[in-house]
């Protein structure tokens, strides 16, 4: 019994290490880790700040930086998970699925591996923030980093659900932006959504990322005078919703993915 638990953990570690090794070797991801923050914080954020950022009652660039942390972790994790579709196309999933390990161990390893890849990308974001002279916020930022595993797990679960439904790479390439971009704008990561009404308000309440962003902001702006202006829900609500989404998505996603692999 003990040895079989060890066996599963060992497999999770090895699968995660595979993704970590890959992302450490990839120059591409290093470049992206600098370009994305530069576009979103540097160009979009700075422009919005100069033109609309006054009188908000908080530092808009810092607000956006927090959003970008969540956004980076969230998106890169999902993108990492979606590599499973590529693995399937390259027949590599066969090698993993024929191994005597739990299907959940496979998926968990994949989520953890993708999470680490997304953490590497944060380095680029922090570098850009320092260059642009955006205050990181000291301990507030450390607290935010401590929350990153939860952010990655939420994203990973959504990623697994997606690969459970999508069989081929082309569909995945079309679907990914459709999942990522609306969430980016509707979740309040980069632009406040407190005053959204109607359909936009409805959408922003049903997407999973909203609660992740909200919890991250609650953690970052804890005891900050601007807390009430920025945070929408109670942190407990955020945690429950995230946990709910996590279990439903990851279990359903694993079952669907494993079945799609076998039912050809």
């Amino acid at each position, binding site marked *: 019994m003990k040895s079989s638990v060890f066996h599963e953990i060992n*497999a999770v570690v*090895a699968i995660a290490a595979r993704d970590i090794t890959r992302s450490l070797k990839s120059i591409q991801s290093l470049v992206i880790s600098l370009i994305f923050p530069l576009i979103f914080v540097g160009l979009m954020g700075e422009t919005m700040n100069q033109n609309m950022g006054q009188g908000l009652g908080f530092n808009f660039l810092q607000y956006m930086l927090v959003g970008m942390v969540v956004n980076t972790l969230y998106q890169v994790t999902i993108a990492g998970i979606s590599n499973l579709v590529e693995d399937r196309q390259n*027949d*590599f999933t066969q*090698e993993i699925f024929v191994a*005597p390990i739990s299907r959940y161990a496979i998926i968990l390893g994949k989520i953890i591996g993708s999470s680490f890849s997304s953490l590497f990308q944060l380095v680029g974001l922090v570098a850009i923030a320092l260059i642009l002279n955006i205050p990181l916020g000291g301990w507030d930022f450390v607290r935010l980093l401590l929350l990153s595993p939860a952010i990655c797990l939420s994203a990973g679960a959504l990623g697994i659900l997606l690969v459970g439904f999508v069989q081929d790479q082309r569909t995945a390439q079309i679907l990914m932006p459709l999942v990522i971009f609306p969430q980016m704008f509707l979740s309040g990561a980069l632009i406040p959504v407190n005053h959204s009404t109607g359909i936009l308000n409805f959408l922003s309440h049903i997407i999973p990322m909203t609660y992740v962003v909200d919890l991250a902001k609650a953690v970052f702006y804890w005891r900050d005078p601007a807390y009430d202006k920025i945070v929408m829900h109670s942190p407990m609500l955020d945690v429950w919703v995230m946990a709910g989404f996590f279990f439903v998505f990851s279990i359903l996603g694993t079952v669907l993915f494993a079945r799609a692999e076998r039912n*050809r």
Partner: protein
Amino acid sequence: METIIQVENLVKQYRKAKEPAVRGVSFDVRAGEFFAFLGPNGAGKTTTISILTTTLAKTSGTITIAGYDLDKQPKQVRRNIGIIFQNPSLDLELTAEENIRLHVSLYGLYPYRPMYRLMPADYRKRVADLAEMVGIQDHLFKKLKKFSGGMKRKLEIVRSLMHRPKVLFLDEPTSGLDAVSRRSLWEYLKKIRDEENMTIFLTTHYLDEAEGADRVCIINQGRIEMVGAPHELKQQLISRYMLIDAADRDRLRQELEAMQLRFAETDNGFQVRYDGPTPQAIIAQLQTPLSKLEVYDPTLEEAYIRLVTRQEGGMGA
């Protein structure tokens, strides 16, 4: 001998196909046996192997491997098997050794360590030994993107032999390998088979590789045509004959007729079938001095081609 693989009435209908790829196949494989699966392209070999190795769902049928029911205990089945897939199943972004390290960790053979140097000495020795066996020892730490097709194949062979499975499935393992590597792979397989009583389930298009099998199973269009030892198949499929000739052909002909043998006269001499008696028994009875004696023992390849082309209504028979 105990049965290690039992397949009954296996059917596979692919979701996107009109006709079933496997149509009610039954066979069994005994422990320690070298079992060869032969059949033309599209016969259903890979489909069957994928089902046996739990990577593909079947439509119907029952399968037991190493005493475990494939449906109810897939994990136990997986623990007892190893496979080399027909399509390479490697991560090209990683090095050869990293692919092997991932594999052994998935099988729980060694604890995972982030670097080769940190892996147990036992692991490093086994990797080095196997890599040398197939001749990729100098390429272990190179990215697979730079590997040739044959080198990838060799890496997969090394990988599948890292854990010592009870049943090793090999789906065309030698396709793309050079002659030297083929030979050394076969020698190694023979060795581990003798040492560890490993069962080998092979598909191949090289008939000479199947010639050494304990039993051969011929599958065509999703159905089993024949199962048996290579010499049995040959016997059933083509009669063996010898070619003899003499200066005094008339006398030889009379002798052959008197012995009630089936023979045909050609420019080169008499083709005499010897299904029952051995060539020696026949020759011992002949009085006519012979000027020529050639004994033909057909290869499995001839027998196989005869069988497969007969089905297609082609040139055979």
